[in-house]
């Protein structure tokens, strides 16, 4: 088995419709490969059509007219040893020699096999003014230099690593400034793996959702809880998962959590619906209430005129037909929606999820306290927040309430290194912070401990009750218990 090479090149060729990650230097961009679509990346524009059929990992040059041309693979392998000891930035400065690398120096470095990024680092090291610039100016300088020396584009298969680095580098605001090393912690501390049932609540553009799904590999189920209008999934889409992955993904609106917990979630029409009695659905106002997202608003003005013009009559009939058709379509959509809601509800109702991941711009405390009820005992949960204070509150609340052990509030510190002969040092710019995590493990809630709590009256009894419910529901995840 060991020598069996399961490495066909066919599976790694770029196709139309693929989601890919473009790489230039250490800047990334996620795009879908489409016919004759103009892509703008780092202020250059081009078409990906020539990349189709090429293998993932291929490096391209941009030619006139924006077409891509695969670059000849260059055999790397030159050592960097030729630079001598003592020939570092300080020396250059103090010798009173040229205070910057000359154009020739850069060419030499290039010949020595230095990548664009390394050349940029060299430029930084040899710029007497770099360290004296403001942080903003430094970042600008780096960007400018990068643009100049890193112009080739590589097309890569998406992965959590690439997308997390891409979002962090380009649009950290969209992912609540979640740094890739922090995302790494989330996935590991959450014990995310194939075959488990994970609840995800995130407002990180779908990146966290996608990374969880990648780690599930299409096995098990993910329930995405979503606020307001609907779940955000752009980041997840960028992973380009095969279609069966999507079947493992469920969604449930936050605004129905209370109803679900109370057992009053209205799913009664589900069974009747499937038995074709669909007339009530379109008209029912309650359906709109339950639908969460109402994507289509009938833009057609409802004409109130009464006329006998036969043409008008025909038009009206047509309109009527159209309306009915729309109603039918809507009915089908509503039906699908209800089915999806029901299946997500069924997964949640067992209260036996294998993990909970929260990474959002919402106050994590009510979210955590609400969603933790759906998690089985002895399962990990991880809460990310860009700020420290809300997690301190979560911690305090959990301690009061019980049901969770091994609580840890952490942040991490990440530094990259330049490793070059006689010029090894940490990279001069580093990320200021990667956000905070609160992680822990659920345990069966306990009446005795609850009794000693701050809020003494009802929670103890309540928790006991919840506990009993969840125990009795364990093996009936498919059955929807209507209380």
């Amino acid at each position: 088995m060991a020598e069996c090479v399961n490495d066909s090149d066919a599976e790694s060729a770029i196709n139309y419709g693929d989601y890919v990650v473009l790489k230039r230097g250490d800047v990334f961009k996620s795009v879908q490969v489409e016919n004759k679509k103009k892509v703008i990346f780092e202020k250059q524009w081009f078409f990906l059509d020539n990349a189709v059929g090429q293998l993932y990992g291929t490096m391209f040059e941009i030619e006139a007219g924006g077409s891509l041309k695969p670059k000849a693979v260059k055999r790397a392998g030159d050592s960097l040893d030729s630079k001598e000891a003592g020939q570092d930035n300080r020396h250059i400065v103090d010798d009173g020699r040229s205070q910057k690398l000359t154009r020739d120096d850069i060419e030499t470095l290039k010949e020595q096999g230095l990548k664009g990024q390394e050349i940029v680092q060299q430029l930084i090291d040899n710029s007497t003014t770099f360290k004296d610039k403001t942080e903003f100016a430094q970042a600008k300088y780096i960007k400018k230099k990068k643009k100049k020396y890193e112009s080739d584009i590589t097309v890569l298969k998406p992965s959590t690593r690439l997308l997390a680095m891409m979002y962090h580098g380009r649009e950290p605001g969209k992912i609540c400034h979640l740094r890739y090393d922090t995302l790494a912690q989330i996935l590991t501390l959450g014990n995310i793996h194939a075959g488990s049932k994970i609840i995800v609540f995130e407002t990180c553009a779908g990146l966290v959702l996608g990374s969880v799904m990648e780690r599930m590999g299409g096995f098990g189920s993910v329930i995405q809880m979503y606020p307001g209008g609907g779940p955000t999934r752009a980041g997840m889409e960028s992973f380009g998962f095969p279609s069966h992955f999507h079947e493992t993904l469920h969604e449930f609106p936050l605004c129905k959590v209370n109803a679900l917990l109370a057992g009053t979630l209205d799913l009664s029409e589900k069974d009747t619906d499937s038995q074709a009695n669909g007339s009530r659905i379109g008209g029912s106002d309650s359906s709109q209430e339950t639908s969460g997202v109402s994507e289509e608003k009938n833009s057609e003005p409802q004409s109130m005129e009464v006329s006998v013009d036969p043409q008008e009559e025909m038009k009206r009939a047509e309109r009527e037909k159209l309306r009915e058709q729309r109603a039918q379509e809507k009915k089908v959509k509503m039906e699908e929606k209800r089915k999806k809601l029901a299946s997500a509800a069924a997964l949640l109702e067992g209260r036996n999820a294998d993990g909970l991941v929260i990474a959002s711009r919402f106050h994590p405390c009510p979210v955590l306290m609400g969603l933790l009820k759906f998690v089985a005992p002895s399962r990990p949960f991880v809460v990310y927040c860009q700020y420290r204070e809300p997690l301190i509150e979560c911690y305090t609340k959990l301690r009061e309430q019980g049901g969770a052990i091994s609580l840890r509030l952490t942040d991490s510190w990440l530094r990259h290194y330049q490793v070059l002969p006689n010029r090894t040092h940490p990279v001069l710019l580093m990320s200021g912070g990667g956000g905070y995590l609160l992680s822990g493990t659920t345990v069966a809630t306990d009446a005795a401990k609850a009794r000693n709590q701050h809020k003494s009256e009802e929670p103890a009894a309540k928790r006991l009750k919840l506990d009993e419910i969840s125990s009795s529901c364990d093996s009936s995840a498919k059955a929807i218990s209507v209380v």
Partner: protein
Amino acid sequence: MSFVEYSELIQEGDVVIIFLGHDSMMPVKVQSGAQTQTRYGVIRHSSDLIGQRFGSKVTCSKGGWVYVLHPTPELWTVNLPHRTQILYTTDIANITLMLDLKPGSVVCESGTGSGSLSHSILRTIAPTGHLHTVEFHAQRAEKAIQEFKEHKVSHLVTVRNQDVCAEGFGITGVADAVFLDIPSPWEAVTHAKRALKRKGGRLCSFSPCIEQVQRTCEALLNHGFEEICTLEVLLRVHDVRSVTLPLPDFGPEEDCTNSTQMASDLSQEEVPNTGNTSVICKTATPPREMAGHTGYLTFATKPRD
């Protein structure tokens, strides 16, 4: 129970983690008839563990109680028997993400050591991936094989007892990722390259000393690896606690100063109906001492052949 799949109830032969209190745990192998001694008294496996739900509270003979937890690679990392220095969760998390590991990945690892990283890799690549782990030390390799069996992951792993620098990983062109935690990683770079798939893959080397990193980076560059990137991650744990800050007494308040007034403003904000003497503040403080270094992580991409 398995390290790659949750179970609801504890069964004969399972490994469970007994949670005794803050940062105090122990792993126990469940055997009917057996007993485990804890500081809270005896746990009888047949009556106290088998058939119980993971995560439930177990009352010991002395009346104290513990929680019994389902094992995870992360709990295992802090509970495993140490045969070597081990990798901890912070580094493991970054290694996993930066190596692009996921279900189905084929991974090479050397050395196996105490199996801390191995368990985490296996969890991530299951059910369709495979781990080829190489351990120089015969007894350690043997012990790892045994552990993987007990943890019901042996179908996902091949343990080889050989010197990776001399003999490599024993496979060619099948790996998506290679991980090196050996004293001279530069000596294993050729073998790593050979083990990786033709279409390319990722490599990570963990080294505590910068000189090892320097030699490894040079070797990686010489062997055509790309995107060579060295980084370091440190975890900081914060203790959540309430601290009391006394308020200064500036003496009786006079009409034309507002300093004490200020102080009372403050106390109104924070302790509404108490005297003016102190405020309580919820904060999080780092520990006095923390891990200041574990190792440098060097990552690289092997391009397509």
